[in-house]
């Protein structure tokens, strides 16, 4: 977003205004669809009085654990699978079998083994996040140009050096793609597991407010969740931009050509 997004902001403002006006028109509608002003005010209130903060913290903590563990496990596994074809071939049918199964289907089995606490939610998140990271990492390693590997060979690099200086940097853009995709997935699974069975966390809070018909609070929490997702994504892109500047430049140039 280099230029000032005037039109976009205008449309956003327009939507908010429209929301406000429509909601105020009908008292009945306002029950289901409170005006934007009320939602934002409620958000300020429940954050201010600490009511929401505990839930936010719980969700973020689960997210962080799940994401970090998934990244560590899946990147390592992906690197192993990418580098040693026989190993990948061994696991391939298992991967192809599990891959098409939607990850939320693991929630019941996780409840069975781990109960309804944090471990279950983190486990489910780890499982779901691991897939995009794993598959992208494997692809990233496989797709390294043979010329690069031959260059490492002609410079007589040992296996560890070759990995550290050539293989890993070359595969990193693809690994980052996997990490980015699983960021959104992590939030989805944390939220879902909190909705299915939990007594804290944003997912739980949102569903609970709906059940007890506290609608403004429900919307406020959704807005909070969206903002958190947005912030996490922005954080990721910033770090990515900094660490992968070389790749941006490289691909940027290719687009121009």
């Amino acid at each position, binding site marked *: 977003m280099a230029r000032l997004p005037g039109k*976009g902001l205008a449309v956003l403002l327009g939507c908010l205004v429209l929301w406000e006006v429509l909601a105020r028109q009908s008292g009945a509608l306002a029950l289901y669809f409170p005006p934007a002003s009320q939602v934002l005010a409620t958000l300020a209130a429940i954050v201010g009085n600490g009511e929401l903060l505990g839930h936010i913290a719980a969700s973020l903590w689960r997210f962080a654990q799940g994401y970090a563990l998934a990244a560590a496990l899946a990147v390592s596994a992906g690197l192993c699978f990418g580098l040693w074809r026989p190993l990948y071939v061994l696991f391939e049918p298992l991967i192809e079998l*599990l891959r098409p199964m939607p990850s939320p289907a693991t929630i019941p089995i996780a409840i069975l083994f781990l109960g309804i606490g944090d471990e279950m939610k983190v486990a489910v998140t780890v499982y779901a996040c691991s897939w995009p990271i794993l598959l992208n990492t494997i692809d990233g390693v496989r797709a390294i140009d043979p010329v690069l590997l031959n260059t490492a060979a002609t410079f007589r690099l040992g296996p560890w050096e070759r990995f550290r200086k050539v293989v890993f940097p070359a595969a990193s853009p693809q690994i980052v793609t996997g990490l980015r995709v699983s960021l959104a997935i992590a939030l989805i699974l944390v939220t879902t597991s909190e*909705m299915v069975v939990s007594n804290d966390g944003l997912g739980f809070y949102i569903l609970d407010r709906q059940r007890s018909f506290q609608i403004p609070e429900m919307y406020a929490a959704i807005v909070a969740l969206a903002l958190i997702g947005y912030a996490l994504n922005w954080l990721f892109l910033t770090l990515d931009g900094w660490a992968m500047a070389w790749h941006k430049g490289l691909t940027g140039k290719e687009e121009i050509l």
Partner: protein
Amino acid sequence: MKESRWSGLGFLLLLLLLWEAAGRYGWVHKLFFPPATKIFASFYQIVASGEVLGHVGVSLWRAGLGYGLAALVAITLGVLMGYWRVVHESFEIVVELLRAIPPPAVIPVAIVFLGIGDQMKVFIILFSCAFPILVNTMDGVRGVDPVLIRTARTFGLGQGALLWKVVLPAASPFIMTGLRIALAIALILVVISEMVGATSGIGYFILDSQRSFRIPQMYAGMLVLALLGYTLNRCFLLADARLMAWHKGLTARQR
């Protein structure tokens, strides 16, 4: 390639045998880890009796409807946003903000408006699938070579024909990518929505089996779901190969 498949399948078989032994000889708690044969028996039973097929049918109906509607809406919007810069700039922020909402969070809103029936689930699936299709369509349309468009214009094509005969086909590989991603999302969301609030569907079936401690059935349900996902994916790839044969050839040549 052929021999390599065998080692992987062999490995899978080995795992299944280990699972079977673990269940039978009590290495692990029999309840949590029923022997593989028991799971397969349950699988056979729920499929043959038609019990699970009803749930699968319901899930497919919800997912299919949501997916189809999402494709219609998102491709249309995507083309508009991709083709006319004005539209893109105007709606970009709103789209990005809506996109940032994790789909499960929209479920309670949908429940408020639509109850806990099929409509709610279809809406959720629509909402979640729309964004990847939209974004990919937009990218595809924007990436259409201006030379192609100018060429079409010199042949006197009007806007409508231009969009339909040039832009859409040229952007179709990207649209297919979006549709493929959205397929997986549709399945995920139908399962999620059925776990959060439903009395039918494969997602509900699996959760319910766990809650009523019919554990082999729970595993069997998961197997059904995995097979369903696999089949849908295969069908998509087949359709993709057919429709996008021209693109496969082109990219293969470029490599």
